[in-house]
């Protein structure tokens, strides 16, 4: 018994000495390969897409090499079309340089895109995004409603999981019934109400209340009855899921997409008359 205890103690002590002699510490993960970082987003509303690609550095102050030869390709997963993005090296304010890749291919909604960057050492990084598509919404008839005596119109967005980035109701009007059309934009995003039963949102457009805003923008008194309302439209912008929290915790990549859409409609003449708009 005593011998076993002595031997066990000796084995433990020797083990501790062996492991205890090891004192090196590296802050870097053991399996280090060339790691590329992709930052950017596809915007369906602009002509040129930009994506910044960098090789992560070993030191905080290290500057990226000018000789790094990177390549980036953008693949439309729905059509399998591949576009090689063009490289440009930009200098940043702190002396750091970055590879900025761009392309002018049109980005379309409801499409899946995959971007792949390849470094000089063979390291690759790939990200994927689905460009948001047009969302369907139901629009009821404008009613002199809800006991307020003021016209409203309800828009229903079923199966819309996240609130759009922006939602504006736009009134296109002619001052005094003549001249150029004037657009008056009224933000409505914060007035969208989440409705769990439809897994989406509802929006009540306050047509008559908005008329006061429109006249105010035009510099006209409320009594004015010569303004013509050509149409009402809904302009909304959608962001892909990658914009949502939680973001990539490793702060390495960000690749997302965005798109905007417009829906237009007109109001019946009787409603326009009731509200005080003129008929062209």
């Amino acid at each position, binding site marked *: 018994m005593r011998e076993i205890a002595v031997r066990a*103690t000796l084995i*433990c002590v020797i083990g*501790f000495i062996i*492991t*205890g002699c*090891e*004192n*090196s*510490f*590296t*802050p*870097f*993960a*053991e399996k*280090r390969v060339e*790691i590329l*970082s992709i*930052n*950017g*987003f596809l*915007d369906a509303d602009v002509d040129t897409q*930009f*994506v*910044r690609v*960098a090789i*992560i*550095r*070993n*030191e*905080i102050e*290290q500057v990226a090499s000018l000789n790094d030869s990177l390549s980036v390709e953008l693949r439309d997963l729905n059509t399998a079309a591949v576009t090689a993005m063009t490289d440009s090296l*930009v200098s*940043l*304010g*702190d002396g*750091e340089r*970055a590879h*900025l890749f761009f392309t002018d291919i049109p980005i379309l909604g409801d499409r899946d895109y995959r971007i792949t960057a390849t470094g000089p050492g063979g390291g690759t990084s790939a990200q994927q995004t689905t460009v948001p598509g047009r969302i369907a919404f139901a629009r009821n008839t404008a009613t002199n409603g809800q006991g307020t005596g003021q016209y409203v119109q309800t828009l229903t967005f079923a199966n819309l999981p996240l609130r759009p*980035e922006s939602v504006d109701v736009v009134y296109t009007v002619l001052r005094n019934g003549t001249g150029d059309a004037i657009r008056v934009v009224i933000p409505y995003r914060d007035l969208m109400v989440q409705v769990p039963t439809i897994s989406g949102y509802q929006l009540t457009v306050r047509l008559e209340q908005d008329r006061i805003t429109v006249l105010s923008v035009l510099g006209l008194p409320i009594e004015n009855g010569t303004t013509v309302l050509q149409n009402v439209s809904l302009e909304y*912008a959608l*962001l892909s899921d990658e*914009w949502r*929290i*939680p973001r990539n*915790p*490793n*702060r*390495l990549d*960000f690749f*997302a997409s*965005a798109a905007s859409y417009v829906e237009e409609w007109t109001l019946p003449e009787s409603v326009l008359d009731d509200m005080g708009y003129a008929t062209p």
Partner: protein
Amino acid sequence: MKGFHQRSLGFSYRFGKVCIRFGIRLFPRAPITSPRLTSSKSIQSLLVRCVAILVLSIVHFTVIQPADAQFATVRGLIVDASDEQPIHGANVALRSEDGQLTGTSSQAGGLYVLSRIMPGTYSITISFVGYISHVDTITVDFAQQLTVNASLEFDEAQMGDVVVESERRETQQRSIAGFVTIRPNDLERVPQPGLSADLVSYLNASPGFQTAGDRGGQIFVRGGTPIQNLFLLDGMRVYQPVHIVGLYSAFPSEIISYSDIYAGGYGARYGGRLAGVIDVTTRNGNKKRPAGSVTVAPFLGAARVEFPLVKDKVSVVASGRESLIRDVAPNLIDESLPFRFGDRFVKMHAFLNQTSHMSVTALKTFDEGDLAGNSQISRNIRWSNEAYGGRFHYLAPTLPVLAQITISISRFDIERLVDQEVVQNSKSSGFEGQFNFAYLLGDSEIHFGIFGHSSRFSYGLTTSTLDDREEFITQGGAFIDGIARMKRLELNPGFRFHSFPSRGQLFMEPRLRMRYRPASMPDYSFSAAWGIFHQQIVALSDDRTVSDVFSAWSPSPQQRPVPRSAHYIAGFGGKPLPWFDFSVEGFMLQAKHLIIPQLGEPLTLSTQFIPVRSDSKGIDFKAVVSRSRYFATSTYSVSRVEYTSATQTFNPPQDRRHQFYFSLGSSFRDFKFAFQWQYGSGLPYTPIRGFINQIEVTERSYDFVDDDGSRAIVYAESFSERQPAFHRMDVTAEKAFRLWQSELTVQLGALNIYNRSNIFDYDYFSLTRINQLPFIPSLGIRLRTL
């Protein structure tokens, strides 16, 4: 808990397919309600019933016992004759003329009660190790309430053997399923350069406890996190008592009377924490004459003074410690150790009469240090504790009931600073009241009480959000805790009704502790503990640093269940030789509903939190050799801690697999030599992948062409690597000189004698390693009155 009988003052527990129900039905049977009482009215109602049952218990045990009317009760107060310090744990033995023996031990505050004594003549012996026993003959009559107080004189003849005797007592008090009582003598046997023995040094050498090293101020118990431990000083909550130099805490041996230490499996009188309990009772001060001590060493200077305010009745003890290492280190070791810490303690104690006494205590601590190593940008951390409280002990004149009332307020502030600017802060404060009663039945005891606690937490995790988040919580409830000592078996069952009114939840927490001494092996014992625990407070800390000292205290998120743990501890120990003692203890701590920040995310107010389950298991070994000239202690722990989230399993930063400790002390004439060696295998940390210029994309109009971004670290998988092992050896040699009524002790020592570079932290921005304490020679001098 699967069901609660609202009208029956009982409860049921379900273990798989087995359901155990028990309780007292006071009202007609009612259907079992939901597992949790979700309305505050129900909780209030239940609390009222808890209190009612306690009152009924008191009445039952103390009044409605006509058969007891013929019995007598012997009670009293046991103090140290030199300074009137109450002695806790002294043995009281009553032997009848026909040789029958009954006994008890003194409770906290030195009070004892022997009840149900038949009329007759007895020999009473009151003893405690190191003191001359008080022996007397008493005669008690029917229903007499006899008071026998004892002032025990220090036994000079035992002086040389005190160390050994002390060890014998420790053997008797061997860790019982994670529990041990520590006294100042035990602390002073842990070699500590600087002549300032401290409870935290003892804990470092104890199985079940670990620290990240000698910096940082955090202590872990059996896989739990620092916030999961309850630290009490005279019943006052101390949030973070360990100093930034982890060799010291708010508990120096100079102020400690004794400490009850639970490495898990603690009894029903404690609650609100998932891991361990350290309950420190301080000295009351000398009521006979002024006394004190002064210590100076490179690490710190300390002074203690105590004196009678009213002789034999009221005393004051005050202690202050202040670190010196920041000023001394550049000259001593040519290295900067930018740490400042200290503590202030004062206590007034008064005997009100022979059966009651009270105390008022105040404590302040402060810590500050730069953890940035050689980096040009300082990264300071600073924190402070404050606690103020009062305690009242009362021995009922006609009943064998001890009452203890504690009221306290506590506060804890912590800040992280970068380049002298506060970037994160956390403030916690609370008010607490506890009424405890002990009904003493000779060898057996019933403890019960009620408690209430109200806390406020505010914190901010970025410069612009300091103090932004503010939350309040309340806790309350009752407990009952019994100790039944039989010939071979000691059972300590208990229940705690712990409610969180701010969450509208109440939990039943059963606890059980036991010890069994087989008849065939009287020198050996088996022990076990089991219990269920809940804790509403969580710590928010950053997992991305090698060693993070900052934690913001916060209630667990409202929509999440209250974190819960279950402890299972089983041990065996014995004394195969008169000078050799050993113990082996296995444990399993399982916790669920713990909340941690999303791995890899920076710690901000918008950080996502994820629930994790914790599984901790291991075995602790301890061996003690006590000879007349030397003593040695060795402990070894092997354990594994694992966290499981919805998506992954990982080992958290407190997962130390192996921990070994060895100390050897020897005395030769008037010299004492000691050394200790500590070893801890490497702790997990999160490595990095490299650096990039991070672009914070916050809106769609972001311009990728011109933005510089900010320099940022790319982290690899959380806790996927391990630090190198920690080990350190300290040595001391000291000699004491008698000077009139005082003792002058001179100590030569060295910390980290072979100058091991133990890693503490790593500054990723400057790629600089920050090590723990280097080799530090020490010359300490202490002068204290005898």
